[in-house]
């Protein structure tokens, strides 16, 4: 045999030894140093010793060239304006946006690298951490260090962060609570000489006309009512069928699954499903609506001019290069009119609105930097810091008209990239805050292409009309935390199954699904909420 083979055999041995040594030494190192993480910069931030504050940040994978999610204009701004004067090094810990709950769970459970500031949109996660004793009571800290923050958020918002009497989270403040509006093809109405529908019945007639007369000349492909399995598409319709209830009924029968209230047990829900069933069987909504999980298909159909009417998050159609923009490019003369059409039995266009809070900001109990964390949030709520983080540089990102920032028409690439993560950095607020809802809405409308300004304002107005707030419970319902995600699936499944059922099978399908729903936790939630109501009201 040649030498080559001998050499390679010989080579394997020392390599193996090296590997063994490497592994062994790593294990040894680990055993020694795993404890020392926390000790590194322990103690209070006194006597000029620089400490590190770790803050979670969502990573959406959209960092522009030259910046990363942990090193960009805004992170540098924070370091200069807050970190340096306070002798704090601010370090950002990125968490992929779509895995935020899972990764946060793992971080919290493994106990080692938890950032000093974490947050989540999921109230169940917040409650779970609070219940299991992992969060710091921030009440006293807020009182001592954060007067501006408290003033900014207000009692109502702060209340959402209270768990069993203790302030365990600092909720962000939402700048606008309107959710939904509906939209109709104005040009189609004009072509058919029909008025804008203002009630559900009128809408029905209009939809039928859309289907029969096909004003959009789609060659039979018209979809009168754009529908998907996302809540924005069906909530305005469903809630309008809910009959008036007493306060007690509303409290006990409503089911809060995830972060929203659902009407499964409220009177009138069955009628809503019946109406959906009618729409489906008469070909007024897409046969594939149940498959459209991300609204992508509906978006295509809108842009193609196939859809005549739909409900949506109030300003969604108006983005640059969004649905309306593309629709108008494809079909000159097309236009969407924001309307309010789902009228309930009291004549109101009842729709849900957001709770006034946004994210739940929390400080883990194990954190040594609680004071610094609160100071950071306080800094953000002070002076013009939040304003700067949300709007950028005057003259480059916006101009001031009165006291409302108006986005500059064609900002430079640099200016644009500056703000790529502003929403995720300005954690104490959801949306731009200018002091009043009116101003907030104005600023929001100005973020959209100028030609759509009026429509955006109208959509916002509609989204804030006849709204009702989620029901506030002073403590979380166990059954809701436990069965929430399962029941949410079943709720959606119920809508799909009853809508797609043949008319003669509607009843049996409805009964079967409701039964399953109740058995899977719906009954448990009902019982718990009923008991809670009795307890609170004697």
């Amino acid at each position, binding site marked *: 045999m040649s030498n080559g083979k001998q050499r390679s055999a010989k080579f394997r041995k020392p390599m*193996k030894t090296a*590997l*063994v040594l490497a*592994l062994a030494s790593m*294990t040894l190192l680990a055993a020694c140093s795993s404890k020392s993480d926390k000790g590194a910069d322990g103690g209070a931030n006194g006597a000029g010793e620089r400490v590190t504050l770790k803050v979670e940040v969502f990573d959406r994978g959209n960092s522009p060239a030259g910046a990363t999610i942990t090193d960009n204009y805004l992170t540098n701004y924070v370091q200069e304006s807050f970190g340096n004067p306070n002798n704090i090094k601010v370090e950002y810990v990125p968490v992929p946006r779509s895995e935020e*709950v*899972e990764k946060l*769970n793992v971080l*919290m*459970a493994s*106990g080692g690298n938890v950032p000093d500031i974490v947050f989540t949109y999921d109230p*169940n*996660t917040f409650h*779970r*951490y609070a219940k*299991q*004793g*992992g969060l710091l009571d921030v009440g006293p800290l807020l009182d001592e260090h954060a007067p501006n923050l408290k003033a900014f958020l207000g009692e109502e918002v702060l209340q959402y962060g209270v768990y069993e009497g203790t302030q365990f989270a600092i909720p962000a403040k939402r700048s606008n609570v309107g959710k939904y509006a509906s939209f109709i093809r104005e040009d189609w109405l004009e072509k058919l000489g029909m008025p804008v529908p203002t009630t559900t019945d009128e809408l029905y007639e209009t939809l039928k006309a859309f289907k029969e007369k096909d004003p959009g000349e789609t060659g039979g*492909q018209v*979809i009168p009512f754009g529908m998907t*399995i996302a809540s924005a598409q069906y909530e305005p319709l469903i809630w309008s069928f809910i009959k008036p209830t007493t306060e007690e009924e509303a409290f006990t029968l409503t089911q809060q699954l995830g972060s929203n209230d659902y009407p499964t047990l409220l009177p009138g829900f069955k009628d809503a499903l019946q109406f959906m069933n009618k729409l489906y069987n008469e070909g007024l909504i*897409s*046969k*594939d609506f*149940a*498959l*459209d*999980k991300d609204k*992508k*298909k509906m978006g295509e*159909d809108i842009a193609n001019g196939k859809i005549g009417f739909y409900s949506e998050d109030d300003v969604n159609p108006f983005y640059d290069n969004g649905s309306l923009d593309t629709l108008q490019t494809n079909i000159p003369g097309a236009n969407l009119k924001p309307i309010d059409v789902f009228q309930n039995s009291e004549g109101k266009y009842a729709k849900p609105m957001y709770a006034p809070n946004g994210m739940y900001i929390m400080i883990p*109990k*194990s954190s040594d930097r609680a004071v610094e964390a609160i100071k950071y949030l306080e800094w953000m709520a002070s002076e013009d810091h939040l304003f700067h983080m949300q709007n950028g540089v005057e003259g480059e990102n916006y101009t001031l008209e009165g006291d409302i920032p108006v986005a500059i028409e064609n900002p430079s690439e640099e200016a644009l990239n500056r703000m790529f993560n502003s929403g995720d950095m300005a954690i104490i607020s959801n949306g731009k805050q200018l002091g009043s809802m009116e101003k907030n809405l104005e600023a929001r409308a100005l973020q959209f292409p100028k030609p759509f300004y009026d429509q955006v304002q109208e959509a916002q107005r509609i989204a804030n009309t006849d709204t009702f707030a989620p029901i506030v419970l002073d403590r979380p319902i166990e059954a809701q*935390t*436990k069965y*929430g*995600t*399962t029941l949410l*699936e079943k709720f*959606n*499944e119920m*809508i*799909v*199954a009853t809508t*797609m059922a043949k008319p003669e099978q509607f009843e049996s399908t409805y009964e079967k699904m409701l039964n*399953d729903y109740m*058995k*899977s936790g719906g009954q448990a939630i009902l019982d718990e909420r009923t008991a809670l109501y009795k307890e609170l009201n004697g």
Partner: protein
Amino acid sequence: MSMGAYLRRYWQLYALIALPLAYFIIFKYGPMYGIQIAFKDFNFFQGIGGSEWIGFEAFREVFGMRDFYITLRNTLMLNFLDLLVSFPAPLILAIMLYEMKVVWFKKLSQTILYIPHFISWVIIGGIVLQVFGTQSGMINNLLASFGIEAIPFLTDKYNWLVTYLIVGVWQSAGWGTIIYLAALTGINKELFEAAGIDGAGRFRKIWHITLPGLKPTIVVLLIMNLGHMVSIGFERPYIIGNMAVREFSDVLSTFVYRIGLESGQYTLATVVGLFQAVVGLIFVLGSNYISKKLTDESIL
């Protein structure tokens, strides 16, 4: 021979095993204490050690959930169907490729056939909707132009099963051929010539030479598949599945995702995982035993 003589002769083999074994112990058996979570009321902050012991309570809870049995049934059903359809497909495809005489086409198609394996399921989901959708899917549009009524490929649960299988084959068959093609290189080509002289046609050659040559590979893969009867990937049922066919598309992996990961109930998720592990192990040992008796091939 004595132990001493045995070791002197074969020490090199054990030297080779040393590091890989260390790997298994550190990285696979090391974390196994996590299985305890199934028996504890897991508290994130007290950790596994500090959480309270609840014995089989979580098991009772999971086994009492109606959804558990439905998802278990679906898992078995989908896996069984896959065994019938997706298991033979790569084999057949590999043989077809092996028999392909046009060399440039053979090489080109091998590469193209496994492209679907690389497309992420999120994207495949979009494509499936475009192709199989009822309202405006490609196939139904084609049918409509012939005046045929639309077929709900995705919204009728039985049709969905077929669609699910087809998409599965499309996604995995090409990739699955690779292992078979590797195995086929080990077949002595002279055997084919000899058989040809004896008057055997193409199909007989395949039956008597090619397939037997592939037997060890087929058996090993089959045993693996049977062992994983109660496990199922997350992505295919989740992405291809939808609300209309949830009765069939909800499987153990989506069930675990829902109750465990989305609501942080790690105990329940671990319970299901443990159940799958135990059953899977039994299946593998069982099929291994049967295989040994029937075909003389086995893993253990």
